[in-house]
């Protein structure tokens, strides 16, 4: 048993313990195949619901297929589910005493938040892969070749990771599984209030302002641009929509800069 005494040993154990906690998430999935089924069905339902129900009524500005327009929005929606799922899991651990057990153990202190965000990254990749499959089935495809496509997915992953730290912090702050569960439905209006499903052009001014500055919109716009999907806006645009890639990177950096230290402090604080 290597000790946590040296900085190098601590770093190694933070990594190893983090991996053990990622493995925990896989173990949970294995016990609950229903979750995997739900994860498989969810994108299909979304694609059908939005693609065919909304798609029958919505005209894409500048022309183009609504389902091509929709998929970047759904990718953004999946990306933004990160903070909610991490928050629920973190709050669950905190309210059930699992967090206290971790804290009373001689394990690397920072492994828990790193493990939790790492595990979410893994489940997020899985969901994204399923969503890509669903998209390809209904006729969506990237048009600009390998590099821009990879860049789009990379943006989603970076933003997802940053968002999962928001989840760690909020989960540690609410500490209560019921409260966390009650907050989950708030995710939907947050995603809807964007350009993900409908163009923002027709919204009233104040709402359009919120939608244009919503990071969901920046991610959606960036993916549309990189995939070559329809709905890339033109004309007089809010800054995040005129520079969507830079906006996503800035959002990610800002979220990480704020929520990583906040989460680590909340985790290591021993006031209670």
């Amino acid at each position, binding site marked *: 048993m290597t000790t946590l005494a040296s900085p190098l040993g601590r770093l190694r154990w933070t990594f*190893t313990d983090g991996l053990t906690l990622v493995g925990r998430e896989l*173990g949970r999935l294995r*016990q609950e195949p229903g979750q995997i089924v739900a994860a498989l069905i969810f994108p299909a339902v979304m694609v059908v619901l939005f693609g065919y129900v909304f798609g029958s009524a919505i005209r894409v500005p500048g022309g183009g297929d609504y389902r091509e327009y929709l998929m970047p929005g759904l990718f953004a929606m999946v990306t933004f589910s990160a903070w909610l799922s991490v928050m629920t899991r973190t709050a669950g651990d905190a309210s*059930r005493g699992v967090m*206290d*057990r971790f804290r009373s153990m001689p394990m690397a202190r920072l492994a828990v938040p790193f493990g939790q965000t790492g595990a979410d990254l893994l489940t997020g990749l899985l969901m994204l892969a399923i969503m890509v499959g669903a998209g390809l089935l209904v006729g969506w495809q990237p048009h600009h070749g390998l590099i821009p496509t990879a860049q789009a997915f990379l943006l989603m992953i970076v933003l997802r990771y940053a968002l999962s730290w928001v989840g760690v912090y909020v989960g540690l702050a609410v500490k209560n599984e019921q409260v966390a569960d009650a907050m989950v439905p708030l995710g939907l209006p947050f995603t809807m209030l964007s350009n993900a499903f409908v163009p923002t052009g027709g919204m009233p001014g104040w709402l359009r302002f919120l939608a244009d500055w919503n990071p969901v919109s920046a991610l959606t716009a960036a993916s549309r641009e990189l995939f070559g999907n329809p709905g890339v806006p033109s004309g007089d645009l809010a800054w995040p929509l005129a520079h969507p890639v830079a906006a996503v990177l800035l959002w990610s950096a800002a979220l990480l800069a704020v929520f990583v230290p906040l989460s680590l402090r909340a985790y290591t604080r021993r006031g*209670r």
Partner: protein
Amino acid sequence: MADPIVVAEGLHKSFGDTHALRGLDLSVPRGAVCGVLGPNGAGKTTAVRILATLSDPDAGHARIAGFDVVRDAGEVRARIGLAGQYAAVDDKLTGRGNLRMFARLYHLSRREAHRRADELLERFGLMDAADRPVTGYSGGMRRRLDLITSLILRPEVLFLDEPTTGLDPRSRGEIWSSVRELVADGTTVLLTTQYLDEADQLADDIAVVDHGRVIATGTPDELKATIGDRLDVVLEDPAALPPAATVLNNLAGAEPAATGADRLSVALPGGGLRLADIVRELDRAGIAAADVRLRRPTLDEVFLRLTDRKEAVR
């Protein structure tokens, strides 16, 4: 006696306006079972959280095996186990999966982790349920899994925070026998409980905590001796209660309490009174007693006397 393995000196802790601990002192010898007894809100859990490095005291010190719980928290954590009121295990994993995960987090190698998990499951009778998710466990099984999870590293000190609260009598018995087994191995146990029979059954020493302070310590017998023996009298005729109370008051020098329509109970001064004297005095007053009994007080009575609360603790 050897150096105490758990020492707390003058622990203070407040949450806003609530003073959870107001100068708590505690000392547990190596290998002993110390029962920390107190009503809800007395500060038991706060004390355990500080000793287990989950919370820092506002003032005072605590040491586990010589290591300060604030300064040397890492050393402390390598020597303790903590099992709580709620089962702190992952519901979604199997029993075996939980033990393996926590063993890995205790930095056992993969092979050691698997071996230790099996060993603990076998020894504490959970092998049959090892591959079922914890969601399907009974309350008692869950609590036992929580308990053995805290044993992975063979801790020198085990903190059990109300280990049987909410369990049925059979599951309580199972937890008790597990704890006895650990004690036979030499583990020091600090047990908080609001069940007095639990402390009576398991603890060598008891610390009674109220309002964030230890108000009495001693073995269960010593604590019982502090309030003297009890005399219980059951009358044949409830109408004889007032005269019987007068007789007992004269004998014991204390006001007897009516414990029912036809029965009285009174604390006796240390020694001196014999059963025969009591029966003769009652007889002389023309009072017919169905039953007269001298007995040791229960811990409940000690506890109520010490904490001076009207309501019973459980």
